[in-house]
């Protein structure tokens, strides 16, 4: 358990069994009055921020987070099935929990899942993934109108702009943190 005097920016505490991180912290103590610990806290699952004022008698349950290496198996009705690569346990995460990661997830990709009290709350992809281009306009030599890039669609349905020489069937590397093209994968 934490005491109020442990509170500080960046500390993670539980409120109503949800994990929160303190984003703004202010200690005040008026006159000869009691200490007040004013916090802005962000829910680590929903991202919603709340304000709370605590007193010195308040105590807080720490947030314990576990990371587990898992493999993405398949998607069905917006539910993503993942398997623990050590004990083969399977879990499901929904669209909301996964966020934009689905743009870069192909079957059998290795990911890291963050667990809060046995609940999966976040998914981290490798920084770079290789994906196949499924739709691209052909490159017309000397075409200067379309400029330095053109839109393509990947096997996951994600669209992005790439250099004009990328063709349908090419494999390209994407930076999952920015969602941008990095290079063509030589085959």
């Amino acid at each position, binding site marked *: 358990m934490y005491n109020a*005097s442990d509170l500080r920016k960046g500390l993670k505490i539980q409120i109503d069994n949800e994990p929160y991180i303190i984003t703004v912290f*202010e*200690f*005040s*103590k*008026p*006159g*000869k*009055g*009691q*200490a*007040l610990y*004013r916090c802005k806290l962000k829910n680590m699952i929903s991202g919603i921020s709340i304000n709370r*004022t605590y007193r*010195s*008698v308040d105590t807080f349950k720490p947030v314990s987070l576990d990371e587990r290496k898992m493999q993405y198996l398949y998607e069905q009705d917006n539910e993503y099935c993942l398997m623990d690569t050590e004990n083969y346990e399977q879990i499901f995460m929904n669209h909301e929990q996964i966020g934009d990661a689905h743009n870069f997830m192909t079957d059998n990709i290795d990911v890291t899942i963050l667990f809060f009290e046995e609940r999966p709350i976040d998914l981290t992809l490798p920084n770079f993934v290789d994906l196949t281009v499924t739709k691209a306009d052909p490159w017309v030599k000397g075409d200067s109108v379309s400029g330095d890039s053109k839109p393509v669609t990947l096997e996951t349905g994600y669209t992005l702009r790439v250099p004009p020489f990328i063709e349908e069937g090419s494999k390209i590397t994407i930076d999952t943190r920015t969602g941008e093209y990095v290079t063509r994968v030589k085959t």
Partner: protein
Amino acid sequence: MIPGQENMSHESKHNQDQYPVKFRKEQLWLRANMIQAIRTFFIDHQYLEVETPSLIASPAPESHIDAIEAGNLYLQSSPELLMKRLVAAGYNKIFQICRCFRKDERGRQHLPEFTMLEWYRAGIDYKALMEECEDLLFTVVKALGKEQKIHYQGQTIDLEKPWKRISVRQAFDRYSSITPEKALMEDCFDQIMVTMIEPHLGSTKPTFLYDYPASLGSLARLKPDENDLAERFELYMAGIELANGFSELVDPEEQEERFKKDREERTRSGKVNYPMPKKFLLALKDMSDTAGIALGIDRLIMILGNREFIDDVVCFTPDELQENSRP
């Protein structure tokens, strides 16, 4: 010229995170010069400078102030009780600049170890003390070569006397939708003070907030005509609480009763109790009417030096003393 002003300007542009104390020259000079000016004021006004021990046996049993243990004694959370014993012994005008220590107090305006100016004067009450406080700060600011209008974090505070005075009742009336009595009953007095009232106090002129509910002035005399109010005041500048003063309670029996209540409250909230300050109570018998005040030196430097954080006005913060932290 005030010492230190000649070599301050060119060094402050570097990354302040690398070696914080290097970039506090302006504030440390201000601190030194300010303390000199304060001493001069009190010496000019025939005050005796005293040094009471920092290691004490029985801190005042305040409900919300915790002392730090040092062996089988305590580091003083305030020099109040020992200074009043001096007043009771016939030292009618005394002042002290000393370190005070308070457990678990750390924030933008709080350090667990800080510098306090405290002074007592026999024969006056809290209203006269407010005027002396005005005189002191007015004189100190002038001695520092600063203008009468202070700029602090976007606010301009005019020190021209007289300063603003507003009673606690008026402040609750003006800035909140609750009376002080109701706030006390619902245990939200401090919260309303911090969130709704303090931010307005002292924004254009220094402001005295005065006449606190009786229960919030453990060592203060009650008003003779309204004994639900204590003759206590706080001084605010730019929303920052700078000083706390009152007409001293000099009735040993009543003081003992109040201490007992404070100790019970400490027990209820799971806090340790200190030995009853019996020698202080005994001394009160010999004390005549007196007013006394404590003023936070670090916060005054913050205001005059236009710093948002108390960290910027001390040589080293507690965090910087940790061996695994920055220099």
